[in-house]
């Protein structure tokens, strides 16, 4: 069938393609600023300590050192939810916590100055495990949280914001169950998505109270909003976004880094650049929350879930900025995946003495499901239920609903994903390969193959607000005003594509403003998978508004009503007689037309991704090789074919499928140090090891925006990790419940690796 669209769904070069490929894109680190200073952070050697005294005089004597700041020198700026985590504090709470900030005229001098700052600490006992942190008498990280439990809830999500899943009567549900299973399951390896470009910023303070930040984050407008809150609205913050060298959620915010630079600029009167090293990025920036769930589920023999009851512990590290949000979204997502009338799932967010958790794609739901699906699998095995059938049956269908993050019940009004799941299963060959639980698909000597499946859906595709303007010019060009940065997905080009489709204007004639918070309207940014529906709707609405105003303005000239006119290629013409036309120039050369668009949140739609995994396990070495991945989804309408393919192929890394195979941060729980904060010891898949990935994408029109599409990119990583555990368990005939499935764990499960001497790490 010929496409209805001229631009939507067509593969075109990205607007920034030439610059990226030729290495001329100006990333943050490429930008030059006159008189710039370089900022560095002195970091704590102790996981928990009070700073008794700091001597900075020697450091200040070094040539080129312009400022040394400690907790006593800086305003009482606080982050966190609730906001009680001081930017620089008298107390340090993890190895790597900020103790002092230095600005100097070269990076080397700044680094050297750190060695001349003398700090005396009073070392405090530290705690690295959630359950230990919850015990009476455990070391206490914050005065505000005496039991190391962070206050639940997210005021921004509204008065009823979701803090748990409490529906129906679980006792009644368990009474109806054919099979009940229980246990403790965790996803605690805290993978870091490690965008290639580390967090960084350039800050320029202007007295008395304003600061401009050049940022390379995922959501540059929100950087200004967050900093405004951190500074108690006493500072006027302008952010100028540039190309973002990857984020995967983790660079949605980096308020600490931005505040460090802002304060150093305030102290010196000069622009200050502060970019984290790779080691800092891994050991002293945010990680995925660690998740541990003790729960009980009841199911019937037909795969109906009758009850879910349990406690979900979430280790947020030394504080929480967004963990409550992740918990709220995770609690919503779990209802999208599991259709159950009786829930009693209580999250508890715990703080421990390690670097904080923060946003990573998967946003709560991946963490929760990586614990829940292994538990459900035990029940499915007992009940003899095929996991594919279970997931098909349980995933949300039109007319069913869920409590979303705001605590409000939404009835799902999107498409039925059963067709996409079945098409994916057919492509993968599920029916032929599935031999039952704990049964390999094939055995060839010491090589055993197994399969697994996972599913994930997120109603964040319509979350939060977006605004945009589209300005039409008499020369037949248009400009999109939207505070979005290109973070690698190609979405900037896609918003131009949407404007092009509405205006029927070649994409080359449409430009976009710099993502400067001063000139653009509110934009929550491309978080989750909201880019296509939420941001896209605002952009489309702005373009439609501009088009309507154009037609209204030119209607008298063409002696027609606006609804009888259309526009294409910078010409307005009469639909009944296209020969009657005027160029946009007819609006007058001294005039522009601006349309405004806004998107208000809509949680009644969710996306869906099912991932099928095949692994081959070497029972003599414990090596797990990913041999095949099939992703299946339905997204209404493909906007950008190569962009979509790249997003779906991104299912492996950035703390996705590979978080079940080898990605993990290794924390020594006796000394509180991250041991593998480098790119050799943090295992990361390289190109020679890419498995076969096939993507099945259906296009059943959605009741979303003008082009009937929904976003998908974020959740590509989410169904995979638990599917890997399932596949390896099936290959070996033994349950594996720990992430990642290292050779050590596989050999142990096979009874081939006894314990040696030494400690308990």
């Amino acid at each position, binding site marked *: 069938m010929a496409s209805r669209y001229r631009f939507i769904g067509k593969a075109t070069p990205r607007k920034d393609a030439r610059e990226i490929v030729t290495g001329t894109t100006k990333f943050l680190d490429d930008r030059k600023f006159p008189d710039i200073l370089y900022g560095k952070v002195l970091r704590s*050697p102790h996981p928990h300590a009070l700073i008794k005294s700091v001597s900075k005089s020697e450091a200040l004597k070094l040539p080129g050192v312009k400022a040394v700041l400690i907790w006593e020198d800086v305003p009482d700026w606080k982050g966190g939810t609730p906001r009680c985590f001081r930017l620089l504090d008298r107390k340090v709470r993890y*190895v790597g916590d900020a103790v002092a900030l230095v600005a100097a005229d070269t990076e080397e001098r700044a680094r050297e100055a750190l060695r001349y700052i003398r700090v005396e600490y009073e070392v405090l006992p530290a705690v690295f495990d959630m359950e230990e942190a919850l015990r009476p008498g455990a070391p206490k990280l914050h005065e505000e949280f005496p039991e190391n439990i962070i206050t639940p809830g997210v005021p921004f999500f509204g008065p009823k914001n979701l803090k748990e899943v409490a529906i129906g009567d679980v006792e009644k549900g368990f009474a109806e169950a054919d099979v009940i299973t229980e246990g403790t399951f965790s996803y605690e390896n805290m993978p870091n998505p490690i965008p290639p470009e580390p967090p960084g910023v350039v800050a320029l303070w202007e007295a008395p109270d304003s600061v401009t930040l050049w940022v390379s984050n995922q959501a540059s407008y929100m950087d200004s909003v967050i900093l405004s809150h951190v500074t108690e609205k006493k500072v006027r913050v302008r952010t100028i976004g540039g190309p973002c060298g990857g984020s995967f959620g983790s660079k949605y915010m980096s308020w600490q880094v931005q505040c460090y630079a802002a304060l150093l600029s305030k102290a010196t009167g000069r622009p200050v650049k502060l970019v984290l090293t790779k080691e800092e990025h891994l050991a002293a920036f945010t990680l995925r929350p660690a998740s541990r769930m003790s729960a009980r589920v009841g199911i019937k023999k037909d795969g109906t879930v009758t009850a879910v009851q349990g406690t979900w512990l979430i280790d947020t590290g030394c504080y929480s900025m967004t963990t409550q949000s992740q918990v709220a979204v995770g609690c919503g997502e779990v209802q999208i995946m599991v259709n159950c009338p009786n829930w009693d799932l209580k999250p508890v967010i715990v703080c421990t003495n390690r670097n904080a958790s923060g946003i990573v794609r998967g946003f709560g739901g991946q963490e929760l499901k990586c614990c829940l699906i292994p538990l459900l699998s035990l029940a499915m095995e007992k009940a003899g239920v095929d996991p594919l059938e279970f997931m098909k049956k349980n995933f949300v269908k039109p007319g069913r609903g869920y409590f979303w993050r705001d605590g409000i019940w939404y009835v799902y009004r999107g498409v039925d994903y059963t067709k996409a799941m079945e098409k994916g299963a057919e492509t993968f060959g599920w029916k032929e390969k599935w031999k039952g639980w704990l049964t390999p698909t094939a055995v060839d000597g010491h090589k055993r193959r197994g399969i697994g499946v996972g599913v994930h859906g997120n109603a964040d595709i319509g979350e939060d607000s977006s605004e945009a303007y589209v300005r039409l010019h008499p020369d037949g060009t248009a400009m999109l005003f939207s505070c979005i940065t290109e973070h690698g997905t190609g979405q900037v080009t896609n918003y131009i594509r949407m404007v092009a489709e509405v205006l029927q204007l070649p994409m080359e004639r449409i430009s976009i403003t710099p993502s400067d918070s001063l000139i653009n309207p509110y934009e929550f940014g491309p978080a989750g998978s909201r880019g296509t529906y939420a941001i896209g709707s605002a952009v489309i609405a702005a373009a439609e508004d501009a088009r309507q105003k154009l037609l209204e303005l030119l209607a008298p000239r063409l002696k027609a009503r606006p609804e009888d006119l259309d526009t294409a290629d910078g010409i307005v013409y009469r639909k009944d007689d296209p020969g009657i036309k005027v160029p946009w120039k007819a609006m007058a050369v001294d005039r522009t037309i601006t349309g405004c668009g806004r998107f208000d949140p809509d949680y009644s739609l969710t996306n869906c991704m099912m991932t099928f995994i095949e692994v081959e396990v070497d029972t003599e070495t414990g090596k797990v090789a990913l041999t095949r991945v099939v992703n299946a989804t339905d997204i209404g309408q493909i906007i950008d074919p190569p962009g979509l393919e790249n997003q779906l192929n991104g299912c492996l890394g950035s703390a996705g499928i590979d978080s079940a195979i080898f990605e993990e941060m290794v924390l020594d729980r006796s000394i509180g140090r991250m041991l593998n904060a480098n790119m050799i010891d943090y295992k990361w898949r390289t190109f020679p090891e890419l498995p076969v990935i096939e993507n099945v994408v259906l296009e059943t029109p959605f009741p979303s925006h003008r082009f009937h599409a929904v976003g998908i990119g974020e959740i590509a990583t989410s169904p995979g990790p638990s599917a890997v555990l399932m596949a390896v368990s099936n290959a070996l005939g033994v349950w594996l419940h720990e992430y990642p499935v290292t050779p050590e764990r596989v050999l142990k499960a096979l009874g081939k690796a006894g314990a040696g001497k030494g400690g308990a790490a």
Partner: protein
Amino acid sequence: MRSFAHINARTIDEAIALLRRYRGRAVLNAGGTDLLSALKAECLPRYPEAVINLKTIPDLDYIREDDGSLRIGALARLSGIASSPLVGSNCRVLADAARSVAGPQIRNAATIGGNLCQDVRCWYYRYPHHIGGAIQCARKGSGPCLAVKGDNRYHAIMNGKRCFAVCPSDTAVALAALDARIHVAGPEGDRTIATIDFFSPLANALRPGEIVREIEVPKVRTSAVQTFLKFTVREPIDFAIVSVASVVTREEGVCTDARIALGAVAPGPVRAGKAEEVLKGERIDGEIAARAAEQALAGARPLSRNAYKIEIAKTLVKRGILQ
């Protein structure tokens, strides 16, 4: 990185003189692929005052044949060794070991001398200074080996003593199986060290002022089957969890000579003498290979988290023999 003097050496003698002059406060750069990351991490106990660049010494990158031996200059690059027809036809196991190191860019810069002398990868030893300070340990001369009570999944399962870091060199394993000898130049003159004696738990065998000059590899009988197997968490750009180099000669199915070396299990490559004895004079099959593998690991004493390495090592020994 901190400031240091950078000195281009023109001759080995000049490099030795410089080492003497700096009295332990200089380090050698024979490729820099490992050295630079250690300098950037500032993890060394004492930051070097000088880096002596050996790459400016001419004619030290040769690979030549001489009286039944291969002679390889210390500055021969790993990529050159991996692709050398002379190495490939005489001691393939060395070529394969060189090819298994890191990725192409690193192999183009790294040298065999540097590969033998690189520092350990222990994550306590390598912990970066700028995240709360480097970690002190036995290898740095103060305190215990933290791996013993900590996360020792990649550490030694045999021969560890005070320090349990493993030898990270892949070429050392092949050279141990080939009975190669390392020729060293130093202030007291030249001497020769067997590969197997080059490594010990706290450091290598080089005395102050000494430099690796040449590696001499006795030629192997052409009928010998040479195998290098390296088990890593990910395929490219990774250090071995366990590696095994084996050189097995058979005549009419009967093993006449077997040389097996294990890597990444101890502070240096380990020759599996007992396993070699098991094989000699026997017809090689799965059963004898399994018995040899058991013998190869008979001396293993794992730490809390690394018993799994024994199983992997046995598997690699067995697979190497059966190639």
